[in-house]
């Protein structure tokens, strides 16, 4: 009796997965593997080798990689500082940190557009104090900047979580056995925080790789990422077949990232957001 009831409770979820995950996936694969007449083809997927598509993929990979590395370099020290604060202060710090995440992603990026524009807020201030204006909007720098700004918390939190979980006695034990601060960090803290780092990398790299909003708003239409190409195939060109084919290629990268995460992140630190 009880089991049956529990089964019924899972029905909405099952419906949800089928309607919004499984069916769209099947459709992506269907469109990606057929041409306009409905015949089976690999042409859509192989079109990634076209210079315009391949270049978009490379730029996306490059920019998201740079963003991920910078995020990691910024996040690790920050997460260490946060995890060493006493509990009263660190709740507040985390809150301050997570607060922007509660605002709409689009709004935040639009705000940065206004700030970074050639005649925007930042340049107005710079001119007012007789400093040279920045030409950053519509450059790859602006895109990287937007990615870092938007995805930084997704790097900080998993690393912060693993660092908090490290037993302070392990650090004391390392010191006790003769390791100085640097050795303790390299031999104990860093290896034990690898799951968090991997989670963080995945959670920054995947959305950065697939984004088209950030590159649209901060990169103008000058720099096309693979996300923008796919978006344009679906909207401007109405070529769902090509869009789906390229999506499948992109999906491959996502799946690889997720497999790497799953191998390293057995305790699910990354999902503790």
């Amino acid at each position, binding site marked *: 009796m009880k089991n049956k009831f529990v089964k019924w409770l899972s029905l909405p979820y099952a419906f949800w997965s089928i309607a919004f995950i499984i069916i769209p996936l099947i459709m992506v694969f269907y469109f990606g593997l057929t041409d306009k007449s409905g015949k089976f083809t690999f042409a859509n997927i192989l079109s990634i080798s076209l210079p315009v598509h391949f270049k978009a993929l490379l730029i996306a990979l490059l920019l998201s990689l740079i963003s991920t590395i910078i995020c990691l370099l910024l996040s690790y020290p920050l997460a260490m500082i946060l995890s060493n604060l006493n509990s009263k202060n660190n709740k507040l710090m985390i809150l301050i940190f997570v607060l922007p995440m509660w605002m709409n992603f689009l709004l935040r990026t639009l705000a940065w557009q206004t700030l970074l524009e050639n005649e925007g807020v930042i340049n107005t201030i710079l001119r007012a104090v007789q400093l040279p204006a920045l030409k950053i909007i519509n450059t790859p720098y602006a895109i990287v900047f937007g990615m870092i700004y938007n995805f930084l918390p997704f790097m900080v939190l998993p690393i912060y979580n693993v660092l908090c979980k490290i*037993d302070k*006695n*392990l650090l*004391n*034990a*390392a*010191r*006790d*056995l*003769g*390791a*100085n601060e640097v*050795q303790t960090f390299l*031999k*104990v803290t860093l*290896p*034990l925080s690898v799951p968090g780092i991997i989670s963080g990398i995945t959670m920054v790299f995947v959305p950065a790789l697939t984004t088209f909003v950030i590159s649209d708003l901060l990169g103008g239409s000058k720099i096309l990422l693979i996300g923008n190409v796919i978006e344009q195939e679906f909207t401007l060109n109405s070529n769902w077949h090509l869009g789906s084919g390229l999506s499948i290629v992109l999906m491959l990268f996502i799946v690889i990232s997720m497999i790497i995460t799953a191998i390293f992140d057995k305790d699910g630190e990354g999902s503790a957001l």
Partner: protein
Amino acid sequence: MSNKLITLENISKSYDNHLVLDEMNLYIRENEFVTLLGPSGCGKTTTLRIIGGFENPDTGRVIFDGKDITKLPAYKRQLNTVFQKYALFTHMNIAENIAFGLKIKNKSKSYIDDKIKYALKLVNLEGYENRMPDSLSGGQQQRIAIARAIVNEPKVLLLDEPLGALDLKLRQDMQYELIRLKNELGITFIYVTHDQEEALTMSDTIVVMNQGYIQQIGTPEMIYNEPENAFVADFIGDSNIIDSIMIKDELVEILGTKFACVDTGFGENVHVDVVIRPEDIELVAPEEGTISGVVTSLIFKGVHYEMDVMANGFEWLVHSTKMFPVGEKVGIKVDPFNIQIMNKPASEDEEAAQIEE
């Protein structure tokens, strides 16, 4: 047991205005098994952490082998610690865990391999080199933690309630194991515990602590048989602690009845605390006892019976192999030698320490 290896001078430490250690003085000799014993919050772990270098004292000095090491960071001290929850490195196998300290000291590979073998043999875990810490039981993990510490050949091994997480049987086995280890290694052990049985079994010297003060330092026999104050008597084993009056040398008035005792030098008509261990009370026929009372409870404990006897308005705790049923009138007799007289707490600090307890 010869010269002083570690000396603590006037060590004080407080956290958030709460005084944990107050002007503590203590020395520890070479090759001694010293136990810091006391209830939680008595300052015993803080003392150990100050010796280990994980805490800095607010005042005072730590002298190690004639040198002031108060400011020396933990990683430069010639002592090693066995932590309460083992603190094994979960990302390393057993051999890597044991080799940790030696690799940092850049020892040769053959030296390290020999040491790992030797240490695993010493803790009876030969062949565990490639296991991961998670796959070991609590007792085994604790042995590895000890092995990891002793391969560094410390002069002193600090043990912070190392058996606290183990079950009773294992804990008893490990006690003998630790005594054996200490004798084989010939180094000083400083052991922290709240378990009085552990302390009595293993120690050469017990330091009883409470509320940041040392209450008594002595051999297990001294601590048990001649507690210096009511706190020590109460904390170590069961005891009857009775507010009494010392009439004169070798005569004490307990609950209105005069008892012969062997203590002298307390003065005349002085208020004192009397400690009588429950196993030192002899239950006899009512007319044969110094005082008489009624048995109010009876519990079988295996080795002996535990009885409460209500006599002269005090509930006497008695351990005896003879059984007296509840409600029976009995006489209480105590050998003068077994009546332990203690001064009332002298200072207000001491008093406060005991009352809060």
